[in-house]
């Protein structure tokens, strides 16, 4: 009883453990992909002089403004032609597009709050643009970028529809396992999986509860 059985739940050969491992692996890769594309984009868009700035910002909002079920169906069809269906890369790409809105918008806000005088001073002292970016600008924007990483990580961890069409049946993440177990009437496993998904979500909510004041939210996007 007790410890022995929980040990077996987290045995790497059980369904829950393997789904947990692939879920976390996919989520980490998704965060990396989002970081790689959204940090440069966020930096460029934080400059007010950027031409068509509003257009670019809206472009990254679009994935949240349409019901994305239809899009996932068609991504799966397109990915099928390229052999990406049922692969890790396919699932990571789908999750990244979904998370991109959060990472780009939060990165823009993070880079906008950095001090442009420090950047100019560094350039005037003879530092190159890349050195200045990594040593002066990026450290100032770090808190926002970390917040965007957490958002993207959670979104990827909880994503069901995209994985259902692109990943199944070869890739099993926690939400897919939960769904299968629940449809088979295996409520114990479904509930244990749900609990595993619930813990990071609630934990994150408690952490950001301090920052998540409704008054702050009303200023977002202005």
């Amino acid at each position, binding site marked *: 009883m007790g410890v022995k059985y929980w040990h077996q739940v987290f045995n790497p050969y059980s369904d829950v453990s393997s789904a947990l491992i692939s879920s976390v692996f996919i989520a980490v890769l998704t965060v990396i992909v989002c970081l790689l594309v959204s940090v440069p984009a966020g930096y460029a868009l934080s400059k007010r002089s950027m031409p068509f700035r509003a257009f670019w910002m809206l472009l990254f909002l679009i994935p949240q403004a349409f019901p994305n079920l*239809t899009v996932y*169906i068609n991504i799966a069809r397109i990915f099928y032609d390229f052999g990406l269906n049922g692969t890790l890369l396919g699932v990571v790409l789908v999750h990244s597009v979904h998370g991109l809105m959060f990472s780009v918008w939060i990165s823009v806000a993070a880079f906008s709050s950095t001090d442009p005088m420090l950047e100019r001073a560094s350039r005037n002292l003879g530092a190159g643009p890349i050195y200045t970016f990594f040593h002066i600008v990026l450290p100032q924007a770090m808190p926002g970028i970390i917040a965007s990483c957490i958002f993207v990580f959670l979104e990827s961890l909880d994503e069901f529809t995209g994985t259902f069409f692109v990943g199944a049946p070869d890739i099993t993440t926690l939400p897919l396992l939960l769904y299968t177990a629940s449809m088979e009437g295996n409520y114990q496993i479904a509930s244990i999986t749900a609990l595993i998904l619930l813990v990071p*979500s609630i934990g994150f909510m408690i952490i950001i509860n301090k920052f998540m004041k409704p008054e702050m939210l009303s200023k977002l996007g202005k």
Partner: protein
Amino acid sequence: MRSSTSYNLWLIAPAALMVGLFFLYPLFFSLYSAITTDEGGLTLAHLEKAFELYSNDILFTIIIVLASVVLLAILSISIAALITLSPFRSIVSLLGFIYRIPLFIPFIVTAQMMRTFLAKNGLMNNAFIASGMLTPLETVSFLGWSGIIIVFVWKQLAFCTLLITGAMAALDESQIRAARNLGASRLRILFQIMLPQITPTIGVAMILSTVTIMSVLSVPLMIGTGTPTMIATDMAFRINSYGDYHVANALGLVSYLICAGLAWFYLRQSLKDKGAI
């Protein structure tokens, strides 16, 4: 200056390319597929077939969306109003904390919770039996249309309330204080001063909720039993059983139209309020 602009464009390019390739392209592809034949000619046959087979489900989806949105509006406005206006600060601060709990709970977890909670032997019916309000024979399962609405309202309420509370907190406080000093009741302040000013926020919250409701596949699959069902389920069925992308995309087009219809209604309403029409 010109070189720095093109330099900035290169920085955006990867992210923009990703959205274009993996979102916009499939989006246009779905629209194209919904109204063309395999040979590329324009046709309405897929839409007709979708309506023929699934008109009940389309109606059902619209009813579910409208019912959820109306319930969401009523509940989120009441909670936000309580938080902002109630004189009993201690119980309200408790409310202000607990309403946010579902904010980060995934839809699939909510669906699993409700699947067991609303079932015939779920905790809800058991609580009613234990309190003597029902006998075991009178219990009914809420899985079905009412369950779907309950899940959507339960999950989206936190998001809507957060937006609306934010809008209420951003209102000019002196106006409300003046109204109070003139002896206006709290209910009257809510309806005559606060609500007219925050209608845009309520509209945005409801439209975003509609888009979310139309996107979620796990809830109708896990909570909806039998027919009619939501069109999300039909789309998954068309793909998984027949590989029929045309009809699935036609249903997708219908789901865009439902969202667009609601957005249009909201925009018209807000323009009307400003006296533009």
